[in-house]
Structures are given as C-alpha cells and as structure tokens.
C-alpha cells in the first residue's frame, strides 16, 4: 500500500522537480567522493599558496564572459619546460652559453590582466645566470623589462617592480605592457605578444627554466577566493558534506524521537511523565548558543557538532504530536490482540506501534533535512565551521570576512548560497508533497 502512495509523487510537479534536484546533488556527491579523495582535498584546501600559486586571486568564474560585452582575460601560464615553447641554446665558448626562451601568446580580452609573475629555476655551481627580458607588443614595440641575475629559485613580480613602473610612465606592468598607445582611453591592445627571456650562463652545466604567469580576471567554473583556491573544489566537497550532515541528523533525530515517544506512550506513568518534562525543558534550551559554546570551547569538528545537535533535538517538539498518535494506537484492537497472545513490550513498541507512524514520519524527516543543512551553514558563517573540510557555509564565511559584498565579488557569496538554496528547496518541495500524500487530512488540499 505504501509503495502505491510513493507512486502518487508523480502527480505533484513540485515533488518531481525536488526529486530531480536531489538526485543531481546525490550524483555530484558520489562523483566528488570518488574523484576527489577526502585526504587529498583536505590537504589541498589548507595547502595555501604553494598549491594554488598559479591561480588569480578573487576572480569570478570564466562563464561570466558570456554575459559581458567587455571580455575578462583568462590566465596565461607558459613554462619553458612545456612543449611548444622555444628554447634555443647557443654555446659561445667553453663556459658561456646563450639561452633564449620565447613565450608567444595571443591576448584577446578587453580588460587588463591582474598581475604578471615570472618564476625562475636554475642550476649552477658558483656563478648564477644573467637574464634580460624583452617584451614585444603586437604593434612591434620592444620594451626592456629588466636585466638581472637569478638565484636557484627566484620569482619576479613585474607588477610590483618600481623601476619597470617608472619606465612605463607610472603604470604598473600588467597595464603598461598591454596598453594600447594609440587609444584615448586606457585599454589593452589585442594581438600576439612575445616575451623574450635571454640568458647568459657562465658554466658548462648551467641551465635555467622560466615560468610566466599572466594572472587573468576569471577562473574555471567557480572562480577563486582570497587564497587563490579554486572554489569549485570547495563547492563540490560541500555537497556530500551538506547532504550527509542533513540526512544523518534528520534520520537520527526523527528515529530516536519516534522511539522515545512510542516508549513513553506505551509504558505511560512516570516514564511518560519524565519524557514529557524533559521535552518541555529541552524546548527551552538555547540550542544555537550551546552549539556555539561547544564549538568555541571544545572542538569545531563537524561530527562532534552533529552529535550535539542530535542530542539536543531528540526531545523535540514532534514528541508531542507522535505521542498523541501513539496514545490512540495503543487502544486499537490489533495491539490488544497482540497483548492477548503474549507479545512482549519490546515487540509491541518496535513491531506494532512504530510502523504505524512511519507514513507521518517520512514527510517530516524530509522537511527536517534542510533545516540541519542550514544549521551547519549558520555555524560555519559564525566562523565555527569544521577546520578541515570545505563546506558551503565556510565559503560564505570566507566571502563575508573578506568583504566580498562590498568589493562587488558577488559570485563568491552567490555560488554557495544558490547551492544551499537548491538543497533546501528541493527537500522542502519533496517533503511538502509527501506530507500531502501521506497525511490523509491534507489530501486534495
């Protein structure tokens, strides 16, 4: 009979929409957990600059260009160890070697890049290679960007090079090097650029490699945050975390609440009284402040918080409504029949009473899920998110603490928020429809 009722879902379009979104979210979760292993994610997310150093800082996702007339640049990363990059070695004598590396790239965006950084690695015994950089613009100008010797690993932030800025009439490198000299307003010149890295090494075995990163103003599918992290990783991992958190909390609290209510109403007397009083006190406990204190004083682990949430919600308001139903059920004929053939208390509570309430339990369980998902997000927005895992709430928190809204970085707040909203709405839409299906009094309303 119950299965037939589930088939009724197809009569509610909102339930189908909700179900489809939930299935998509579950699909993303499964893919994420398999494709991006937990341990790697934790290391990457906390990794800091070394892992993410080639990403631009706080830029929106690449697809914003579809909605803009002025296209934003994507990052250009070229390395002399890549294929397709010219690297000419001309030995001059026994010791001196001339190495010329030429990076060639097309620049088609309507805005300037964020920053330009060159990083060098070199091998030498005593005397370090000497480098000279030449920037060639599409209209044939050649600009000397700098001459210097390099250590074994070195990086040069051209955008912060004061000498270069002075040479470019006070414009920093990422603007000065790309600016169109014939244009009235400041805009980049489109075309093929070249950066020639000419180096002189002073030892036979000496060599060097260069990597050039021209940081764009868009990145990937989700953009980046203040630590250059790819938000996609956080958003994707946020999905299984949110679903698991919501589902575990909702199932655990509903099932435990139901068992407590059934036990209380079956045994009656002081057991029932005690459960009722605990429920009344529990309703009065300031749950969020207590959770915050646990987070501040002990641990911010997601799973500890989950445990405390379950503990604080099992004596919830729904005990009262379940109890009312159980009180009616315990008087019904089949329970008396069971008693007369000698069924034990345990058997009656778990096999006869509880199954009767499951149709009412399922909708409320589904509706409960988003409230726990949002509770986790609330804690994260208060800065009490899990220290290891990326979650949607933590991304919102990062965005808020870094002034994303004031700086116009809306994508940073909106992406996790939209995901949260989708999750919340999908479960709520499904739950409301289930409620109408399973709750006979609401039928047809």
């Amino acid at each position, binding site marked *: 009979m119950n299965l037939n009722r589930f088939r009724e879902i197809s009569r509610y379009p909102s339930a189908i929409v909700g179900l489809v979104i939930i299935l998509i979210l579950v699909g993303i979760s499964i893919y994420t957990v398999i494709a991006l292993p937990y341990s790697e994610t934790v290391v990457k997310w906390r990794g800091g600059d070394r892992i993410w150093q080639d990403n631009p800082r706080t830029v929106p996702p690449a697809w914003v260009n579809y909605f803009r007339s002025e296209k934003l640049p994507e990052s250009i990363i070229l390395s002399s160890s890549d294929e397709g990059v010219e690297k000419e070695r001309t030995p001059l004598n026994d010791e001196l070697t001339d190495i010329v590396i030429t990076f060639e790239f097309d620049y088609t965006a309507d805005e300037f890049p964020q920053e330009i950084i060159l990083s060098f690695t070199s091998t030498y015994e005593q005397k370090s290679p000497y480098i000279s950089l030449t920037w060639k613009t599409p209209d044939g100008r050649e600009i000397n960007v700098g001459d210097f010797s390099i250590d074994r690993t070195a990086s040069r932030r051209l955008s912060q090079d004061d000498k270069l800025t002075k040479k470019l009439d006070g414009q920093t490198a990422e603007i000065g090097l790309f600016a169109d000299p014939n244009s009235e307003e400041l805009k980049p010149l489109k075309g093929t650029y070249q950066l020639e890295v000419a180096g002189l090494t002073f030892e036979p075995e000496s060599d060097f490699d260069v990597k050039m990163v021209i940081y764009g103003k868009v990145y990937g599918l989700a953009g980046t945050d203040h630590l250059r992290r790819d938000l996609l990783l956080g958003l994707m991992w946020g999905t299984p975390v949110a679903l698991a958190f919501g589902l575990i909390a909702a199932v655990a609290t509903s099932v435990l609440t139901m068992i407590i209510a059934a036990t209380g109403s079956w045994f009656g007397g002081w057991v029932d009284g005690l459960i009722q009083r605990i429920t009344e006190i529990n309703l009065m406990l300031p749950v969020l402040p207590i959770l915050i204190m646990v987070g501040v004083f002990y641990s911010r682990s997601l799973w500890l918080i989950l445990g405390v949430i379950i503990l604080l919600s099992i004596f919830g308001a729904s005990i009262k409504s379940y109890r009312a139903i159980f009180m009616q059920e315990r008087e019904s004929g089949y329970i008396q029949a069971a008693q007369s053939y000698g069924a034990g208390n345990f058997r009656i509570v778990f096999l006869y009473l509880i199954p009767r309430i499951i149709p009412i339990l399922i909708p409320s369980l589904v509706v409960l899920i988003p409230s726990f998902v949002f509770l986790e997000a609330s804690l994260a927005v208060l800065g009490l998110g899990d220290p290891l895992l990326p979650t949607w709430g933590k991304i919102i928190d990062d965005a808020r603490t870094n002034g994303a809204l004031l700086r116009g970085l809306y994508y940073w*707040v909106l992406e996790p928020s939209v995901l949260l909203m989708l999750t919340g709405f999908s479960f*709520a839409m499904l739950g409301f429809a289930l409620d109408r299906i399973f709750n006979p009094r609401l039928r047809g309303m």
Partner: protein
Amino acid sequence: MTTPPQDTVGRKARIDTLKRIGKYTVIRFFMLFFAVTVGIYLTILIANMGGYVDEIRRAEIRENIAISISMNPEYKKLSTEERKQLQKKLVVLEEERLGLNKPFIIRSFTYLKDALMLRLGRAMNMTSDSGSRQVKLILLERLPATLLLFGTSFLINFFISLFLALILSRRYGSFWDRFVVGLAPTSAAPGWFYGIFLIVIFAAWLQILPYGGMVDAPPPEEPLQYALSVAKHMILPLIALAISTIFLSIYSWRTFFLIYSSENYVEMAKAKGLPDRAIERRYILRPTLPTIVTNFALAIIAIWFGAIIFETVFNWPGIGRVYFQAIGLFDIPVIVGATVIYAYLLAITVFLLDIVYAIVDPRVKI
C-alpha cells in the same frame, strides 16, 4: 431544581476562568523557571568542563595581585624571591575567599546563583558603549535593539499571515492559493540567508537601502529623523525575516482552517445562513487559535536562535552581534552571559504566549 439567575452563572464562570488561568500561569511560571535553571546550569557545565571559567577567575586574581604588589611602595624593598612568596600567599588567600578551592559541584551552584541573578561578571576584552566592563551592562545595552527588530517582525508576521490564511482558506484552489502553497518551501532557508541576497540586490546593486546597521552615521539629531533612519534600516531585515517565515505559516494555517472548515458544525452554521465573517470568527478561528499560538511560540523560539547570525549579517547592534563579537574575541564571560540572557528571553516569550494560550483555550488543564 431551581436554576441560578443568569448573571450569577456568568460571574461564576468568569471566576472559574480566572482561577483556571491563574493556576495555570503560576504552574507554568515555575516550570519555565525550572527549565531556565536547568538550561543555565548546563551552560555553566559546558563552559567549565575544560575548566575555562575557573581559569578566567584565576588569571584575573593573579593579575590583580601582581599589579597591586608592584604598585605598593611598601613592597619595593623586598627581594624578587620574597615578592614571589608574598604573591603566592595572597593568590591562595584570594582564591580561598572566592571559593575557588572548593570542589566544582559546589562552585557550579555558586556560579548558577550568580547567573540566575544576572551577576554576570566582568568582560575580558569587550566594553559597553558607555565604557563599562560589566557583562550585564554590555548585554542589556543591546537588548532594546534586538527587541525592536524581532518584536516588530513577530507582530507583522503573525497578523499578516493570520489574515492572509483566512482569505486564502476561503478562496481555496485559486491562483493566489496555489501561489502561496508553492512558495511554502522558502521557509527551508533561515532569515539570514535571504538577508545576504537582499543585501546583494538592494544595497550593493541598486544602492537604495543601507547594507546594515541601525541608524545612519552620524545619527540624526532630530527624533523624527532618527526614527525614519531606523525604519529605513529595518526594511531589509524585516523582509528577510518575513520571507523565511511568512509563507510557511500562511500555508500551515490555511490548511488548518480548511480542515476545521470541513467540520460538521461549520456546515451547520453555513446551513443556518450565518454570514462568512461570523463563521470564520466563531467556528473556524476560535477552535484553531490554541494551535496557532503554539505554532507561533515554536516559530519564535526558532527565530530567537537565528538572531545571533541574523544580526551579524545585518550588522544590527543587538545581543546577537555582541555574542558573535564575543566568539571572535574569545570573551568567555560575555558568551556565557549572553546565553543566560537568551535563556531568559526565551522563557519570557514562552511564558507570555502560555498565558495567551490559557486564555484562548478553554480546555487547558495541567
């Protein structure tokens, strides 16, 4: 077999009602007070389980004594060793005086008594706007702001949803009815969440309403201007709270009214030809009021808890934001104190609604 005169019956019934409500109120009062006590005691246990509260007190004592010794010219002549000895002795004396050497169980009850009487101690870092370090002053100073925002929101939401639910239950199946039913899932998200969206749209993008805060800076001198400025700052928070609660409450009350309007006595009243308004008031609203009040109480509890984050998102200078700042500064006395105040606020709201409940529900028994 004499029937008592009409007015005596009326008076007796009224006295009975008063007695009933009075008894109920007193019992609820003690139950709620008991609940508050348990809640605060739990708070103290949680806060002190790692010895935090004790540690704060010890550190304060040590620092005070160290300062008083270094400031006292009489002790200037003592050697470092002697001074250390003296300091240790004074610390032990002071700890004994404050009862810190007693077992935790006894101390916890001292803390409980302090907390219940709102003796909340001194903040570690934070100060109130008037410069005081008293936790009580820091928190009570912010109470009016919180009450203003949430009180307004409660009242608006309660009456608007009651009114709309009645209208919709009459036009059941119409476009607006289906519209509200379709929007009911919006309550899955809390108010602060809609707040973020509203701030993006109205403050950041359209720039017609402020990002947050309670008044313009600097605050206007004139009282009327001041009130207008506060009202302007309240628009977005009120809308956010409304979106997150109003559709669900309209939906559930409308459903409730529909269930009750299919009762036989309503059909009977209709058959008698009573006007719609009378039917609504006497036969639908009256029996559903107790449930409405209960639902409202639960909704308020949920919103109180949301206040911490809600006020933070909107930069509203209420207790919630103090709480948030205290977390950031790790100011434990303020965190514990705010939890105590929240427990009281919650109890008071529930108590007031309990009285309303007793008035509207003639069946109330304890």
